[in-house]
């Protein structure tokens, strides 16, 4: 039976070691020179590449690697533990970056300066407020006077009405009330 070489080669690749070959595949290799040559080359390539397993580092290199990793893990654990514990503000301040500390100090000085500047201008502000209050009060008074002026009854009419039925004393009061006695 003629060998279907492409298929045989794929099957051969599923058994990369000579010792793994099933009997039917071994028989095919016996009968097909092309597949036999292919198998032989693949085995040789595999064997050559496998020679690289003789390249390895010395124990000292691996020990150093392991020690370094060990130390880095211990550092990580210490860091994680430090983060888990509550810290004082002074400790936080001490560990912050110099640039951040400088920025915070500058901000504090700026705020302090602003506060002092505002405090020195407070009297002016108060005077202004008082002037405004007085101005408002005067305006209200003027408005009230104007209102009183508008609502002031006719003096002659009032005297006539009062003289009809009010005693003299009351008439005088009324005269005073309507401003004629001034």
């Amino acid at each position, binding site marked *: 039976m003629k060998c279907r070489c492409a298929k045989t080669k*794929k099957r051969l690749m599923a058994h990369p070691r000579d010792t793994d070959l099933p009997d039917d595949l071994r028989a095919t290799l016996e009968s097909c020179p092309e597949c036999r040559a292919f198998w032989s080359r693949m085995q040789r390539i595999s064997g050559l590449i496998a*020679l690289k397993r003789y390249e390895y580092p010395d124990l000292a290199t691996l020990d150093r690697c392991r020690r370094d990793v060990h130390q880095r893990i211990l550092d990580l654990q210490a860091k994680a533990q430090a983060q888990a514990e509550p810290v004082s503000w002074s400790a936080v301040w001490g560990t912050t970056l110099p640039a951040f500390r400088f920025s915070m100090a500058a901000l504090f000085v700026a705020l302090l300066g602003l506060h002092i500047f505002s405090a020195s201008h407070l009297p002016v502000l108060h005077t202004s407020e008082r002037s405004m209050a007085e101005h408002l009060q005067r305006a209200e008074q003027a408005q009230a006077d104007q209102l009183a002026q508008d609502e002031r009854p006719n003096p002659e009419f009032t005297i006539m009405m009062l003289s009809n039925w009010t005693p003299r004393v009351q008439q005088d009061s009324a005269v005073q009330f309507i401003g004629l006695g001034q």
Partner: protein
Amino acid sequence: MAVCFMSENDKERSADVQAPEEGGEKDSVLVKRAQGGDVAAYNELMRRHQGKIYGLIYNMTGNQQDAEDLVQEVFLKGFKVLKRFKGKSSFYTWIYRIAINRTINFVKKRRNRFAISLHDMDAAVEADPAYVELSSKESPFRDASLSELQQKLNAALQTLSEKHRAVVVLHDIQGVPHEEIGKMLGCSSGTVRSRLFYARQQLQAELAEFTP
């Protein structure tokens, strides 16, 4: 003193990767302890697996220093995310997965700006059947130096795409079975076989002089 990652026998190599627990506590026990913050337990896990992880990264990158740095990154990341490890796979499959992803990302980023820096081959290579055949009297490469062979193997490996290289390194160099590679790469064992097939064809073209 040097440390050998894999034995010469393929089956032993596979077993080495599959059963890395060398007596003492099982990986799963150490993982539980490490998840509770036991650094010594994690250190032991690292000791057991770092050789293989180093081998994977070294062969993927072709650079000793990169391998050293990445091994550290991988195990550090492993510790950070260990609480998320639910034990659905073995620890070694899980840490391999982290290593593969991290290394593939690294190799993609560095692209054409890297220097080769290789370890010397152990003298034991001279007893390996593949090397014996290569250095036999009949071979045209009997006079090729070991470092020359090393350079060519590494150059050929570096021509593969990251995914194909990962499969070749895991299977042909580290002896990890297809199914296990599939778990590590998040694909089927069929995909692993297919990648291996194409990778070897490409390697054959690159190393044609060694496979007459």
